């Protein structure tokens, strides 16, 4: 490190952390961006900002949470640690030394300030911040409501697609239907759906492009732009003109003559040209003559002069031959080009129209369902801020008034987000003090173009902030993460990379951290084994061996072997100098792949080697076998005639049926024509069934009986418990999978639980929803279960998914794979970083059909795509703290791959010459002897807690009141119960002295909330009781001392009881109890029960009213009464 570097470093933090200054920081991977950003928040708080005045936006919820947790932890330390520690923390964060003492009390109070602040600090993502804005939007913006966020849009999109097609079909011949037909006819259903789905994904950009001018005008504008540079009229019949061009015809005839006297292959061309001559259909004619002039790649054939040829054709003939080739070739090419452009134009005309209509349908559908998605949120936020009154409203309406805005991972921002943010700044400037802005990011780590992130924004935003906010622009190239050895290779790979013109050499913060880079030789083709596959292979003995798969399998085996050599052998530094350490564990290793395509082969190798691993497969939960087992089970419960599902469940560890068991059932099915597997299984004689099938039959019968009554989660819970699912999987899957399988089973349970907490779920619906989700793109389906700290397993990620992660050891397998091509049928967008809306919006089907206007943009895009590929490599390499391992298989294009770049760099660093068959290795050997064992980690705490064995047993507790009714009981019982309650309430109203007079019946009926007929019946019964002379003394206030209804009492045992009516006389007390029905109809046992109950009341009253006689009276609403005495 030079003195210059040191100076820079010293100057860096004080500037970056000064909360009064706006700053843009470009910071390399592992440089501690989060540290910087959170420190800056601390400084802002120290400077007196209220938490509500701070807005920090980052890219994922995970990162936002992490920042918030870190902030809380630091402030807690500042509040609770000793003075020295607190001072040191302030100094590290560049608080001027002379201010430290003065600020110390402030610092100590920040923790509680943060915790109690109202409004609190906002640390969030763009989407949730936008959502917050939307929720607080002014009413006249027309977006108010409680729409829920649809995180899974696949089903909705399917539905919109369906509706859209139906709408179009309803008006055949209308422009929309014509456009859709054009697409279907020319490009087929799949590609049509593809281009329209892509349009839908970019509909926010389309709206921005369209602005306020309306769809038709926007389509017109887009089409006009496509015409630039095209010198052919769009409705010209280019082909027809070509076909009927007499000059060409005669040239071709001439050419045929020449060709036939030339080489053998030319003679063949001549033959085909001759055939073409009579072709009336222009398109077929062109197709036939084309190969005479062009190669299959579409290039003009190389036809050159040669002496031999001149001899064959004569000199003049050769000259004509070359001239015709040239001139007709050029004509054909130009015509083909013109045709392609016309196609492109028509394609856009149709696809933009359909896209806009589909988007409209989709929006309408979401409005109906009251859901919104991320694109809507972004768009609404942007629209809100476009109207200045609304913008002002929003700024005032939010409880928080931001004075400090911090933006993290800025390279991942998309144009609409940045535009919206700028609108916010501008509106804020109008009503408020403008905030200080802190931006941190790294253009080198921009890898989310597919999610519309725009790397070019970084430079643009820097400019904007410099100009309008006087922002300082800083860069940070010191990695706190990577060991020097890793950085050396990183530097060598990228320093001279032309696409990385802004690359600055990275320095290691921990100059002595041990590190290592290994580049394994590529797995080469085994020529002999691969050339000829065995014909007519014996299927029972030899499986089909696909060469590429077997090469990959070898690489995977090498990976597994490599990991086995690392675990327990290599030493992982626990401190930054590498002096204290421990042996490597599985959890220290992260495998990073570009794509998941071949992941299964690597996983298989790991399983085979017994290496525990977890794949955080985005959207993978539903594809894991264990979860598919359970889905199959649920599907069987929904549709028990589904034989395959039943067989699947039986084979799963839930039951663990053997092949022989399945054969038993299959034989039974064969015996009885037409039965399902389940019917057959139900009928097999007990003696014939083994233990496994007996158990399966018993459990499945139970579950089937409950399938339509239990909520999904409860059903699944019973299944897990009664079938001992977790334990059985634990036993039945390879050790390497145990952790992952258990996590996935839990995650699936959670899925059911969450779904159950949603609305209107039934088992069939749950199962149907899962089917839709399984078919949905990966982003939407649920992720595999996350394994807590408990799982010591190798982690497998894609590079995209590894953003923000790191590991001591990173392995990049399959690093020599070539990059993927663009598929076509995509949206092409040009949104200049500083523009208010896109300058270009179009779609393209295939490369050949791009118009000149599109080509220009595509070239720029290609450059970015290439740069992004390098970014991916950069991100992958810089995840490694200590060791980076790289491997791959030989494949076409592998010489330009990341593998080769790393290999070249490592070879240079190791100063070895390239020998492709050798391993290249630099850095430390991670020799165990060198390090000192980390004591803390090896101290295993012994548990001293005594466990009550009864915790593992059932503990029946509580009772469920034998509900009077179960499904299937007669309705009259339920009605009786309700009637009773209402009668009580009516009597209470009619006889309570405190209640207003006997009020009118209407009031009473309203109070009881019953129908007329029911009320009449109640009223009749009440009248009968009240009118009965023998009961008069209990209801006529002049005849008793006092009386009360619904008298609560509590007994010695703590039971609370309620007496229907308690009447107190001079010398006696009477307990009244109302029962529905007539005395005559009551069963004797029930009567005894009633008597006992009232007798108990009387006993209690005897103790309460000492000296008075106590009696009970049961009055039946339908007539009759009994006296109870004690």
């Amino acid at each position: 490190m030079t003195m210059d570097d040191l100076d820079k470093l010293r100057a860096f933090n004080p500037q970056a952390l000064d909360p009064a200054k706006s700053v843009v920081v470009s910071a390399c991977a592992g440089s501690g961006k989060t540290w910087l950003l959170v420190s800056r928040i601390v400084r802002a708080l120290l400077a007196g900002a209220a938490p509500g005045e701070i807005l920090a936006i980052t890219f994922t919820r995970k990162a936002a949470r992490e920042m918030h947790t870190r902030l809380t932890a630091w402030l807690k330390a500042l509040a609770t640690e000793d003075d020295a520690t607190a001072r040191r923390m302030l100094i590290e964060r560049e608080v001027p030394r002379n201010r430290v003492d003065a600020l110390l009390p402030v610092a100590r109070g920040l923790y509680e300030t943060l915790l109690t602040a109202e409004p609190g600090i906002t640390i969030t993502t763009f989407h949730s911040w936008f959502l917050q804005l939307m929720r607080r939007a002014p009413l006249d913006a027309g977006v108010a409501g409680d729409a829920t966020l649809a995180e899974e849009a696949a089903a909705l999109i399917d539905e919109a697609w369906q509706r859209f097609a139906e709408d179009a079909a309803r008006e055949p011949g209308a422009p929309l239907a014509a456009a859709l037909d054009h697409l279907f006819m020319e490009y087929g259903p799949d590609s049509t759906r593809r281009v329209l789905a892509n349009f839908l994904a970019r509909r926010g950009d389309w709206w921005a492009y369209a602005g306020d001018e309306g769809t038709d005008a926007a389509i017109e504008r887009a089409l006009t732009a496509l015409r630039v540079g095209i010198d052919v009229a769009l409705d010209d019949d280019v082909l027809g003109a070509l076909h009927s061009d007499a000059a060409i015809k005669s040239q071709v005839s001439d050419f045929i003559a020449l060709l036939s006297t030339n080489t053998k292959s030319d003679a063949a061309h001549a033959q085909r040209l001759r055939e073409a001559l009579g072709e009336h259909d222009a398109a077929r004619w062109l197709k036939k003559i084309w190969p005479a002039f062009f190669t299959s790649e579409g290039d003009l054939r190389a036809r050159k002069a040669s002496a031999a040829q001149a001899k064959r054709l004569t000199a003049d003939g050769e000259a004509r031959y070359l001239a015709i080739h040239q001139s007709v070739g050029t004509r054909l090419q130009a015509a083909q080009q013109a045709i392609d452009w016309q196609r492109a134009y028509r394609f856009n005309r149709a696809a933009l129209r359909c896209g806009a209509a589909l988007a409209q349908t989709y929006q309408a559908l979401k409005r109906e369902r009251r859901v919104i998605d991320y694109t809507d949120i972004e768009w609404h936020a942007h629209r809100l801020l476009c109207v200045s009154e609304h913008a002002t409203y929003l700024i005032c309406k939010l409880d928080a008034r931001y004075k400090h805005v911090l933006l993290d991972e800025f390279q991942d921002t998309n144009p609409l987000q940045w535009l919206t943010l700028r609108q916010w700044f501008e509106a804020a400037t109008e009503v408020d003090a403008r905030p200080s802005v802190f931006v941190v990011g790294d253009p080198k780590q921009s890898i989310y173009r597919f999610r519309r992130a725009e790397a070019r924004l970084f430079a643009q935003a820097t400019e904007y902030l410099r100009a309008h906010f006087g922002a300082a622009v800083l860069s940070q190239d010191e990695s706190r993460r990577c060991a020097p050895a890793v950085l050396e290779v990183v530097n060598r790979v990228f320093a001279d990379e032309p696409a990385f013109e802004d690359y600055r050499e990275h320095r290691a913060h921990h100059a002595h951290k041990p590190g290592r880079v290994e580049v394994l030789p590529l797995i080469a083709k085994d020529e002999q084994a691969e050339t000829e596959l065995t014909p007519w292979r014996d299927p029972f003995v030899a499986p089909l061996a696909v060469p590429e798969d077997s090469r990959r399998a070898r690489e995977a085996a090498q990976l597994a072997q490599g990991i086995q050599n690392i675990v327990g052998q290599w030493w992982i530094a626990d401190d930054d100098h590498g002096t204290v350490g421990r042996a490597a564990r599985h959890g220290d290793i992260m495998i990073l792949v570009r794509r998941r395509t071949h992941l299964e082969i690597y996983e298989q190798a790991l399983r085979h080697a017994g290496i525990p691993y977890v794949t955080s497969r985005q959207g993978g939960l539903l594809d894991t076998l264990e979860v598919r087992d359970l889905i199959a089970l649920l599907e069987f419960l929904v549709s028990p005639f589904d034989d395959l599902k039943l067989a699947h469940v039986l084979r799963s560890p839930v039951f663990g049926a053997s092949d022989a068991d399945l054969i038993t059932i299959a034989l039974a099915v064969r015996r009885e024509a037409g039965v399902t597997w389940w019917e057959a299984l139900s009928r097999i004689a007990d003696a014939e069934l083994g233990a496994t099938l007996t158990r399966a039959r018993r459990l499945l019968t139970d579950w089937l009986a409950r399938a339509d009554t239990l909520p999904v989660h409860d059903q699944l819970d019973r299944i897990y418990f009664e079938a001992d699912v977790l334990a059985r999987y634990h036993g039945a899957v390879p050790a390497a999978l145990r952790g992952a399988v258990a996590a996935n089973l839990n995650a699936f349970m959670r899925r059911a639980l969450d779904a159950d907490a949603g609305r209107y779920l039934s088992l069939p619906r749950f199962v149907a929803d899962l089917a839709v989700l399984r078919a949905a793109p990966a982003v939407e389906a649920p992720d595999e279960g996350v394994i807590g700290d408990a799982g010591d397993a190798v982690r497998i990620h894609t590079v995209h998914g590894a953003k923000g992660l790191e590991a001591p050891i990173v392995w990049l397998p399959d690093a020599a794979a070539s990059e993927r091509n663009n598929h076509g049928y995509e949206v092409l967008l040009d949104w200049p970083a500083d523009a208010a809306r896109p300058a270009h919006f179009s779609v393209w089907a295939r490369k050949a059909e791009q118009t000149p206007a599109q080509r220009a943009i595509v070239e720029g895009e290609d450059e970015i795509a290439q740069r992004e590929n390098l970014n991916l490599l950069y991100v992958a390499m810089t995840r490694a703290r200590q060791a980076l391992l790289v491997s791959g298989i030989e494949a076409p294009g592998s010489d330009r791959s990341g593998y080769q770049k790393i290999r070249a760099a490592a070879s240079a660093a190791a100063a070895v010459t390239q020998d492709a068959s050798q391993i290249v290795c630099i850095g430390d050997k991670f020799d165990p002897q060198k390090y000192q064992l980390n004591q803390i980690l090896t101290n295993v705490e012994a548990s001293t807690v005594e466990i009550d064995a009864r915790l593992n047993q059932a503990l029946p507790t509580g009772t469920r009141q034998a509900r009077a009714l179960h499904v299937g009981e007669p309705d009259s019982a339920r009605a009786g119960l309700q009637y009773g309650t209402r009668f009580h309430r009516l009597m209470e109203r009619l006889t309570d002295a405190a209640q207003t007079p006997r009020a009118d019946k209407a009031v009473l009926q309203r109070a009881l909330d019953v129908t007329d007929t029911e009320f009449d019946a109640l009223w009749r019964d009440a009248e009968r009781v009240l009118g009965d002379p023998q009961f008069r003394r209990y209801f006529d206030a002049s005849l008793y001392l006092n009386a009360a209804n619904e008298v609560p009492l509590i007994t010695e045992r703590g039971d609370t009881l309620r007496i229907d009516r308690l009447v107190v006389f001079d010398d006696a007390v009477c307990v009244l109890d109302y029962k529905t029905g007539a005395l005559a109809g009551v069963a004797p046992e029930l009567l005894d029960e009633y008597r006992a109950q009232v007798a108990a009341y009387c006993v209690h009253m005897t103790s309460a009213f000492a000296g008075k006689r106590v009696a009970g009276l049961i009055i039946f609403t339908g007539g009759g009464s009994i006296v109870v005495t004690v």
Partner: protein
Amino acid sequence: MPFHDLPSIPLAPAALTAAAASEIVNRHRAALPDLRGTVIVIPDLHAAADVARALRVAAQTPVLLLPRITTLRQWAGEIPLDKPLQSRAAREALLYGALADQTSLGDADRWAIAGELLALFDELTRHAVTLPQSAAEFARQLERAYRARQNRSFEFEAALVHELWHLMAKGTRELDAEAAYPLRLAQIAATATSPLYAVGLRQLAPSEKKFFDAYARRAPVVQFNAHADDNDAIGATLATAWPPAESTDGLLARAHKLHAAFPDSALAQRLSLFGAADPEQEARAVDVQVRDWLLAGKQRIAVIALDRVTARRARALLERAGVLVRDESGWPMATTSAATVLARWLDVVSGDAWHHDLLDLMKSPFAFHDWPREARKLAVWRLERYVRKASVLSGIANFIALAEQHNDVEVRQLLARVQRAQHAIPRTRRTIARWLDALTASLTEIGVIDGWRADSAGTQVFDFIEFFKTGLRDNTLALPFAEWRRWLTRQLEAASFVESAVTSPVIFTHLAATPLRSFDAALVLGCDARHLSSANDAPLFFNQSVRVQLGLPTRQDEARDSEALLAQLIAATPRVVLSWQTHAGAEENLLAPPIERLIALNRCAYGDELAETRLPALLAHSALRCGDTSSVTPIMEPPAPPAERALIPHAISASGYNTLIACPYQFHARYLLRLGQLDEVEELIDKSGYGRHVHEILTAFHTAHPRVSDVAADVAAMHLKAISDEVFARSVGRNALARAWLLRWKSLIPGYLEWQRARETEGWYWQVGEAARELIIRTPAGREFKLMGRLDRVDQRSDGAVAVVDYKTRSEQALRAALKTPGEDVQLPVYALLWGDAVAQASYVSMDRDEVTTVPLPGELDAQTDSARARLATAVDAMHEGRALPAQGAPSACAWCDMHGLCRRLHWP
């Protein structure tokens, strides 16, 4: 929180209930055991039983006639009014009606706005806030509070609130519950005679304060409130952790003071914090902790379920162990299966009986309740099979036709009822009450009402509907179906279902229901920032500073209140565990701020973070398992079952043969076990459906025109198109998207005809299509089996030579690759074999995009057919001799195989 000048007795928070009870009993010793003459007002009714118990303990009599123990709301609710009360639903409908014509609201959800407005108006009434007479003045007032300049949007908000507030206030004919409340309270106070005790009330509304003052003028009123004094360690600790308003001391200073006053932590034995790694662990922690407490003899255990979802999981785990839980919070009615059947019925109505919805409805135990359960289930399963086979998507008439086709009387009966029920729901605008009438009529028809009556949640849903019918009888707002449905959905989501049949020492409840209750132990579930604060649901109207200005409670007040509730709970409960998830998925979680402060305080004062130590050990070493823990299956190696002789098929098709080559185990599953994927209802016609259609079209076409060159080009094309339309008609009629495949095919027609002509030029003429053939093959061991197949097409040349042709929708390239290694794809050799001797050529025809090309089988045809026959014959013998059928598909085979679940490939070691 003492109010006004009424006598207030401060009591230690830990013993608030008991102390208040003994104070009350002491004052009425003479009347014992009859305390009926007094009234005790408490903040939440759930505490009534606890207060009663405390009174009895204080009274020490065998039985106690209880005072009226009630809340102010409950008490007031019992007072009759002389004016009718306008239901909440009616008011909401009124507001909705007023909002309906507000065009500036654009697409906004008016029901949601009406709901928010109603809540706001109730709040304003409760806090006795009145709005200025002039709308402009109100707008100015708001703008001041917002610190904003004049702004159209603010003015709109102000005008809307102002106008509707006055509109609602004008409806003097009826009262609303919130406005009636003060009147009712006043009525109680006006006739007061009983002594009144207020225990632990928090945050009184103005009308309530007024009530106590008025009451006190007629009868004695005493209030009891929690108030820590200097000797009360736990009270002081909690007060130190959550100091009132702007306490000047920092955390450290307060901690030191606390330590000085109480050298030992009052929390140490009482409270602990458990951080769970994930939701499942937290739920298990609740389960194990509750059972551990039960085993330790604790009688009253509360789980304060801040996180309802995890609580539900915990409840299921407890029930596994036989521990029933009394759940006081209940569930949203919308989550019950009783409400689900209602929603599904409306889906059926609005979605023209979309097959998923229809089957789902019919599978509900509530539907067709008058039918025997098993019979209904069997009938529905039959229907499902018909539907899948025939791919009927929707339309009740189509389903009925299907039932008739199958002569299934029962299914037809059920469907006819659905149809009648559908007719009961009209498509015109009507009032909510009339919509509900139509709804119940239709549900009666399909037996759902009967089903509901037999179920407790069902009864609640039914009552709920009846309740609205009554409450909205006079409402005249006419709504279209969709808007009415939105209304109904909102109501169902707001209502909750409480099952009250359980008696148990274990109670799940919410924080607001805990004050004054005594528990032996309590677990607070979900102590993270998300669950213990309401920061996320900002009201639609106004913001916090406006609320301050108007005199409405703010979020700060809410936060203070939940601190007070927590403090009471912790003080009154001898053992409290706070649990939370340290991670939510892959994200870190934040502890709720009050808990953060409490723990930090204890650490500063006593150096202890209060981490729960026992629970992790309990979790690690306990596992409740079902009695049935029968032998665990061993790890599954790749299976290779010996072929079961009795199951070996006597006939093998070309695709069966291909399967055998690709993976013998797959062959076993498919052709020995005879398992296959059931038909799914084809919503979008897919590639295989497309293939089927094309085969049908071409066979029909060539049957009519065996020699296409004999027909004029345009005539041939026209005819082929007409046949195509006809064949596709059914699919297109069922689903507009099928048209895409039709058009796709039509665009291929010229190419196809050209190819066909070229073929005829080569001398090949179509001879037969869709030809089913069989061949008996004798194996080396002398067995016989049948080889069979359906040939797409056979062409013949004038010399008698025959060509076997198979149409494929795959690309030429893919087909060439498939045919590259002899013996991997045996379809063409098998077809050649099936046809017999004269076959000179066997080829696929690739019909991909707009090209039609021939892909001939490479190599010597005779040699290929011989090898194909020989290998299969040997294989059949091998199977009969019990050869193992190993699972060994290459990745390309596995990708298309449905038997993953049987071979268990992904779990092989």
